């Protein structure tokens, strides 16, 4: 007996054609002809995997790729660890980051205090652990704010076009022209609050245009698909088209850019704190610690090394995660 063809049950219905993996299959080369492209798509087709293959959406496909990507696994584990210790720093640090003993200032590693002490005699290990909370909070909240504000404004501009789009594009141009650090020095220097909110607010204010541009572009691309036209021809309302057809197909690039941006917001917080306009003591932050440690870099480099190392690893982890997510979601690669 011959092996059953994957779609054999369809035979009686007079079916034709192969199942094709995705609409966005990329050509193997510039020379790829239509046939070669169809072949490409063909090869990735779910049909080959057998008749009982479960439905695979873009997200489950992406997850399938991500689980096998070592970059994703490593950065994911690092981020998971960071999130856990920012919620429960007591898990790994028993001390109090504000409990300092000036007599121990600048002392090096010793039992119970593996990272040594800083200029005020505070335990560097405890402060580094507690600093994660500030960094993660600022990064996550700023990203959420930017994604919501930028995503909605950009998405609406892309969908409706016209005057609103033109106006918004000019506004984003203006914001792009503001140098971030200079803007921070000017705007944040007048703030006296020692909470994280002014810093987050500043990041959202300067960050949303980037996301809005991405969201606008990706909504415009999604809008041109025939299935949006088909919904319109059926009489679908704007909100149905936006929520049901456009958003699910336009959100991937926004998520990718936001993930990568998260890392840069964390480093921006550190930069601003280092410059003295970001967070202010008694808030525990890597930026503040790096700033205060930098004057002792010759005789006590450990004070700088630990918070700076933690910062570098955190930022790198988020950027790597963003990269991995992009690879998994980018339709051009599938």
């Amino acid at each position, binding site marked *: *007996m*011959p*092996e059953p*063809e*994957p*779609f*054999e049950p*369809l*035979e009686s219905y*007079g*079916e*034709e*054609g*192969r199942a094709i993996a995705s609409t966005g299959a990329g050509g*193997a*080369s*510039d*020379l790829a*002809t*239509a*046939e*070669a492209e*169809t*072949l490409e798509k*063909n*090869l*990735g*087709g779910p*049909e*080959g*995997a057998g008749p009982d293959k479960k439905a695979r959406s873009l997200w489950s496909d992406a997850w399938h790729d991500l689980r096998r990507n070592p970059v994703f696994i490593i950065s994911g584990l690092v981020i998971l660890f960071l999130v856990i210790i920012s919620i429960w720093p007591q898990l790994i640090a028993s001390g109090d980051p504000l409990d300092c003993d000036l007599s121990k200032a600048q002392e090096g590693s010793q039992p119970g205090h593996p990272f040594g002490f800083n200029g005020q005699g505070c335990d560097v290990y405890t402060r580094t652990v507690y600093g994660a909370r500030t960094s993660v909070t600022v990064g996550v909240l700023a990203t959420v704010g930017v994604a919501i504000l930028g995503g909605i404004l950009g998405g609406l501009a892309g969908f409706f076009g016209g005057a609103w789009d033109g106006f918004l594009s000019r506004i984003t141009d203006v914001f792009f022209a503001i140098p971030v650090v200079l803007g921070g020095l000017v705007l944040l220097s007048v703030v006296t609050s020692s909470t994280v909110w002014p810093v987050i607010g500043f990041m959202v204010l300067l960050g949303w245009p980037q996301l809005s541009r991405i969201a606008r572009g990706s909504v415009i691309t999604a809008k041109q698909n025939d299935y949006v036209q088909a919904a319109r021809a059926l009489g679908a309302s704007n909100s149905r088209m936006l929520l049901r057809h456009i958003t699910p197909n336009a959100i991937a690039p926004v998520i990718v850019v936001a993930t990568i941006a998260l890392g840069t917001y964390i480093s921006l917080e550190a930069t601003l704190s280092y410059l003295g306009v970001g967070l202010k003591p008694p808030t525990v932050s890597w930026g503040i610690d790096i700033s205060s440690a930098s004057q002792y870099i010759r005789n006590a480099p450990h004070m700088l090394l630990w918070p700076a190392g933690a910062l570098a690893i955190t930022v790198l982890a988020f950027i790597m995660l963003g990269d991995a997510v992009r690879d998994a979601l980018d339709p051009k690669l599938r």
Partner: protein
Amino acid sequence: MLLEVRDLHVEFHTRDGVAKAVNGVDYSVNAGETLAVLGESGSGKSVTAQAVMGILDIPPGKITQGEILFQGQDLLKLKEEERRKIRGAKMAMVFQDALSSLNPVVSVGDQLGEMFQVHKGMSRKDSRAKAVELMDRVRIPAAKERVGQYPHQFSGGMRQRIMIAMALALEPELIIADEPTTALDVTVQAQVMDLLAELQRELNMGLILITHDLGVVADVADKIAVMYAGRIVERAPVHEIYKAPAHPYTKGLLESIPRLDQKGQELYAIKGLPPNLLAIPPGCAFNPRCPLARDRCRTDVPPLYDVTESPVKRASACHFWKECLHG
């Protein structure tokens, strides 16, 4: 014999397994002859052509078996350096999508001239003159004025003519045209096909025309190879195949196209699905869709039977070709 492909096999290694894109293809072209390779998407017609040109992406592609004899020399045994010298100078290719095959930021004249600079070591000025000559030859009006323009400034038909000019630049002995007119409008299609046929006659080149369009084939080809699931299922001179196909797939294709000069009722439709290259059915690959299929077709792979009816040489890969031809 100008070009002879013998028992060519090409595989693609993918995440889901090995796709057998080409499974033992034999065909040949003489100087001055037009061979049409007919097939649907996934039949392996373009992959075969890419293997002949040496532009197959390896990996994921892999030529596992076979010979490609060009003027008696096996191209698969040559070094990449030697093949590159043949490509362009002795064999050239015309693609379907002229817009993406031309570099958008280099002027048409420079792209045409590059051929002469690279292969013939000509100066920029001389190659420019050659480019104008070529554009005249493919009947682009005001070639002298337009030689400095960029691809987007030309219409689709003109861009395809520029592609033909580029392929012809070094007067190759073999041209492979992969769906050269599929993207064009029907009135422009006729212009481009006529031009290609005329230049072929003039230069006595061999032409391999890859297409899915039975109409285009009938208009220009001398002989046809019909491909299905990476194999040739029928090979014959053009008149015979349209008069009396010897393979049920060819027969089905011919009957399923509506005709300009006939208003039919119901069209004949080939049932079922084209094969999945990851799991080609055992026996004859066409058996699940074939009206003539019986047990033998599900187990024995049909060889390309010689079904020559003297003096016409033809072949069919159907166990029951007699039934198809005469029934």
